């Protein structure tokens, strides 16, 4: 681990080479908003563009996404210039026009001084949910869960996560990691009694032998047993009663 020194908003900051600017900045108390960043995800698609910062390196200054910009020697970062604020505001206003009823986006908009998006709001099919097409859900499913039940479908503003051909996926384990990771709560996951509904499929839940609460889909237990070799009886009780 090579230690280097960079500058953030004029202050000297120690960092590890190739760490992301966003992580270094946050660790040192500089606030940078972000939607599609998740510390456990390596992909760092840089898709929402909310975490833009200004960097100067080798005599060149430009806006970059801090979540996937690697820190290298001599880097200077500014998190709050006029340009950063202006472009971030534009990005957030576009997100608000896309998902006007998302509380997360509404809050972010207020923080960036936006009352209402000036852009035409698309009332068509694209306005059906709060998805900002950041692809974090598909990365969690691939990288963390390891099943790749969903991927990004279509392109342009029709781009959205989904199962192949939008049919119930046979590899989905119903774990809901995608729904938990989603920054805008756009993925519908409904637990009703002993059944969980997600991505158009119903999963039977395992009930805790102590409290009687259904807490994990059977398919997820199968997956964990298969991939880790853990004993099935471990899942008789929910985490609160183990």
């Amino acid at each position: 681990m090579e230690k280097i020194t960079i500058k953030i908003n004029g202050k000297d900051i120690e960092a590890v080479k190739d760490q992301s600017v966003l992580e270094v900045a946050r660790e040192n108390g500089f606030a940078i908003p972000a939607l599609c960043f998740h510390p456990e995800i390596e992909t760092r698609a840089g898709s929402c563009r909310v975490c833009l910062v200004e960097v100067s390196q080798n005599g060149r200054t430009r806006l970059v996404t801090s979540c996937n910009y690697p820190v290298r020697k001599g880097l200077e970062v500014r998190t709050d210039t006029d340009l950063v604020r202006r472009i971030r505001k534009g990005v957030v206003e576009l997100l608000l026009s896309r998902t006007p009823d998302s509380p997360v986006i509404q809050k972010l908009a207020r923080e960036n001084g936006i009352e209402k998006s000036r852009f035409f709001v698309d009332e068509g099919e694209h306005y059906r949910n709060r998805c900002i097409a950041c692809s974090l859900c598909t990365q969690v499913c691939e990288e963390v869960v390891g099943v790749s039940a969903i991927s990004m479908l279509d392109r342009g503003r029709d781009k959205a996560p989904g199962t192949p051909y939008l049919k119930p996926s046979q590899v989905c384990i119903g774990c809901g990691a995608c729904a938990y990771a989603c920054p805008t709560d756009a993925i519908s996951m409904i637990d009703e009694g002993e059944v969980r509904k997600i991505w158009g499929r119903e999963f039977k839940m395992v009930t805790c032998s102590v409290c009687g609460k259904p807490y994990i889909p059977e398919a997820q237990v199968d997956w964990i047993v298969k991939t880790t070799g853990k004993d099935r009886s471990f899942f008789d009780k929910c985490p609160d009663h183990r």
Partner: protein
Amino acid sequence: MVNRKLQSVAALESYRAKIAESQKNEYPVIYVCGGTPCLAKGSSAVAEAFKKEIESQGLACKIELRHKVTGCQGFCSKGPVVSFGNDIVYLEVKPEHVPEIIEKTVKNGQVIESLGYKDPQTKKRSASFQGIPFYAHQKGMILKGLREIDPFEIDDYIARGGYASLAKAFSIDPDKIIDMITESGLRGRGGGGFPAGTKWRSCRAIDSEVRYVLCNGDEGDPGAFMDRSIMEGNPHAVIEGMIVGAWAVGAHHGYAYIRDEYPLAVKVMKKAVEDATAMGLLGKNILGTGFDFDIKITRGGGAFVCGESSALMRSIEGKVGEPRAKYIRSVEKGLYDLPTVLNNVETWANVPLIINNGPQWYRETGTEGSPGTKVFSLAGKAVNTGLVEVPMGTTIRELVEKVGGGIRSGRMFKAVQTGGPSGGCIPESLADLPIDFDSLSKAGSMMGSGGIIVMDEATCMVDVAKYFISFLAEESCGKCTPCRDGLPRMKQILTDITEGRGKEGDIELLEELCDVLSYGALCGLGSSAPNPVLSTIKYFREEYEAHIRDRRCPAGVCRNLVTFHIDADACTGCTLCAKQCPQACITGERKKAHVIDQSRCIKCGVCRDVCKFDAVRVE
């Protein structure tokens, strides 16, 4: 199968001498253009007619025709083109012309002037490359091969000096090769204009056992067909360039990524790779030097964005073609995260020229900052359109007025659009601008891959901006917010303006959105997407204002904002417009002024197009 593998550089040279000897002819060679536009206009029938005529006259052993169908000969708007290796070129040739051509031109060396080019102004005819302005003002460094070589015959390429640069390169240290490319000043022809030598050197400098050399043949700009024509017409030049590049950077595997909408290019390139491999010019131990390099052909997935370098690499890997952040460049982490050099088709085709003739020779053409020539697909409202090649630094005016022969139907030259959807519009007032990478960028456009669309006074610049933004909104991969959600908003505002719903402040809102894309988008396509809007606002702001404030389209294009009516003084009552009107809403007696029923007019403009007396007015 006979083993045709050439075991050494000397074997290549003696093979070349042998083919050249066998191709010596008593009669001139007949080159029938086999470019896609000429094929569409019936050049296959012309080639067939030549074959039959030669056979029936018993001339087969004396004429090297071999259905000598070449690559694109350039003058697409006047195809099928037939030329003779000397200075003679015939246009719009039909099968019935063939016996006369054989008799007069092939056997007796006579020129048939009536098959030449007719100057629209002077009415003079010329059947010589030097006498036809379209050709006379070009410099065919890259395109010369297309006009003379049968792309399906590797021997034809070798006979004309093919693979000589490869043989020469093997005697030069790879670092010296990179020096030569750097000194030549060769810049990437795909649009960015990045110095090729710098890219190669960075890739070579990375410590890695595996490196890749890629060719970008995913030409997707509307109206651009340079790379397609080069791949279809002279595939071995591209392959030779790639092998030299691989030798220079130390790569042993290459891919040519070709868009699947180019079936002929895919077919030609596949055949060329197979032939070069069979001859020992690709594969293991090339020309006995111990150097290995192979090329695989990858067909594109049909998305415009796959022409972007990082998306192209993902697509080759079999993943969804989406760009990634390139904070770590692809010379360091490219295909399969390994060091990769990606250059476009035309850039590779320049490499053999530089190695053969030296960097100093190359720099004699073009400008200080942009040496060499550039191939353009000249399209739009010019009199002559097609595939052209001019030295860098040629002015826009020279290209439009000399090569292009000015504007069709006597209208005024208004602007040119360069660089495809990511480029911009340059007005006639700046037409003396030299065409090179830096001048075009400074004017708010870009070289792009080389599409040039000529526009006349009947072109609405707001409508043009709307066209390109709609294209880009359709082709956006959707990965990042500014491009995915910004382009549809821009399209909506432009649509409102062209349909008469424009508001004060729309221009400023567009400019704001343009900034969000320029600074905020993830890849080059998103960040250059505002160019069509920004350049038209910069040079044609008054047109935007006329649409918004006066609800008027000065060019008479935007239907909601124009009315068609007939000038009673100019109308002769010929009835042509009334006959052609699809709504049958033009009435009037013969030899008396006609009238358009505005309530039923759909503003299609047919009446204006057919009127021979310029009596239909648009306001």
